[in-house]
């Protein structure tokens, strides 16, 4: 769509170059060359720094496949990504529907902004705020014990559910956003037509609304799944000892163990997984775009 509107009033790369070069050079130096360097380093025994001996090796990759730990953690991260994505669909889709089809005018605009706002605020701080709520003797614990007649001990902090809650909180606005955009585009008359032809609400939802909003669901799922698989800060803060995932292992290689070549290989494997997922989602995304 953008391309038809973009009025390339004039042809030729030459006059465009001076305007384009600075931005794309910067992206090359800070994004594309580093990604290439990472691939290169992942095949090394050591960093070619400070006169250290180094040679080419496949060892970093064989380590991934021979030591079950890395594969297990990657699977754990993929599972985490799947669970968080599913929760985001369950929580976010109905909200997007209400926003697109029930609310109108200014209240819709205001609530849309309110839902999107936290998404664009500091992620680290939002995860930290959950630590306040979930810890033993924290707000959730205190409130529930004040309300309930019996004593219960809520200590969700440093557990798998805590990580899920924090991540869903971080990413659910994404799902609301993408689903809202596709739901809003569905013509109300289609829904009315379905209803007047005798379909129940549920049938209309299943046969009309969900299929038509599928691109938004897929886009949201891809945009949530990918960063969650690579998350490390959230599991560290909310998961404690149970929060060891693929992302935290990569972090360790760079800030604790200092095995950069292995870290590079693990990062590259993650990148490959991410690219495969994005490629699978791409046809749907293109149709939606």
């Amino acid at each position, binding site marked *: 769509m953008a391309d038809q509107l973009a009025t*390339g009033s004039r042809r030729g*790369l030459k006059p465009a170059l001076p305007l384009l070069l600075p931005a*794309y050079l*910067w992206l090359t130096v800070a994004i594309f060359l580093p*990604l290439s360097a*990472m691939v290169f380093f992942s095949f090394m025994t050591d960093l070619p720094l400070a006169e250290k001996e180094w040679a080419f090796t496949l060892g970093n990759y064989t380590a991934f496949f021979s030591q079950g730990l890395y594969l297990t953690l990657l699977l754990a991260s993929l599972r985490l990504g799947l669970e968080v994505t599913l929760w985001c669909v369950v929580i976010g889709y109905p909200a997007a529907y209400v926003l697109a089809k029930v*609310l109108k005018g200014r209240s819709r605009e205001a*609530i849309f902004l309110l839902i999107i706002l936290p998404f664009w605020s500091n992620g680290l701080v939002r995860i930290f705020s959950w630590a306040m709520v979930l810890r033993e003797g924290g707000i959730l614990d205190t409130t529930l014990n004040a309300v309930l007649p019996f004593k219960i001990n809520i200590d969700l902090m440093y557990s798998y559910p805590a990580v899920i809650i924090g991540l869903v909180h971080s990413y659910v606005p994404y799902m609301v956003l993408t689903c809202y955009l596709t739901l809003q585009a569905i013509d109300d008359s289609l829904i009315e037509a379905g209803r007047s032809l005798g379909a129940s609400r549920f049938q209309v939802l299943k046969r009309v609304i969900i299929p038509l909003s599928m691109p938004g669901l897929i886009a949201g799922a891809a945009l949530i799944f*990918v960063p969650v698989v690579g998350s490390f800060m959230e599991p560290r803060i909310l998961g404690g000892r149970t929060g060891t995932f693929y992302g935290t292992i990569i972090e360790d290689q760079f800030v604790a163990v200092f095995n950069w070549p292995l870290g590079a290989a693990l990062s590259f494997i*993650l990148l490959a997984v991410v690219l495969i997922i994005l490629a699978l989602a791409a046809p749907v995304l293109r149709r939606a775009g």
Partner: protein
Amino acid sequence: MATTRILEWLGRFYIFLLLAFLYLPIIIMALMSFNASPFYQLPFEWTTDWYASLWQNDQLIAATWNSIEIAVITTFISTVLGSMASLALYRYEFRGKKLLQALLFPPIAIPWLITGTAMLIFFFGIGIGRGLVAILLGHVALALPYVIVVVSARLQTFAPELEEAARSLGANQWQVTHRVTLPWIMPGVIAGGLFAFAVSFDQFVVSYFLSTPGQTTLPVEIYAAIRKGFTPEINAVSTIIIVVSMALMLLTARFFKFGGEK
């Protein structure tokens, strides 16, 4: 009809629950930053001591200045370079344009963990190493695609005939850009700039891998503090950050309606 009414009210109630889920933890954190007990004990007792003690924490203050400095420079560089690139992508037709547009996608879509570690390796390899320069290089690269997307979206609403008209009236390329195009896309440029500031000011992952003990940003400093143990001081500084970043986005929304009514 009655069922529709009930369903609509259920829907509204559901939205209210979602908003509560999104905002309660943040509100609780903010409240706790005004609570006297360092162990977050209730009953609530009002104090501003934690904010006062922030001023004594030189490390946090230094990191805050670094964050602001880097965010301001990032905003300036990425807005200028990004607007230039958007103009070129709008004005000219050439082979490989689709590719250039597609290349904006990886910095946004690839998890920051991967980009961050890749930058660390590369910057170390070419001798830049870690520190504020490396962080700035990274932040600008992360902010650029957002600026280009936002400014390009604004350009879509621009009528190219205006440029043609100005040209036929004898304006040169610089005058056309300066007097006709720029004023029109200004709201987009400002929104892009605010986006860039937010991307940089809130950035944690990439900064984390590129920082060294003396040269860090506020989120990195907060992460280190959280891992050492919770204190109301972190709540205080976190509350300040969240208020700043939300205010920024509200400001952005004023200049640029993202996703809302078309």
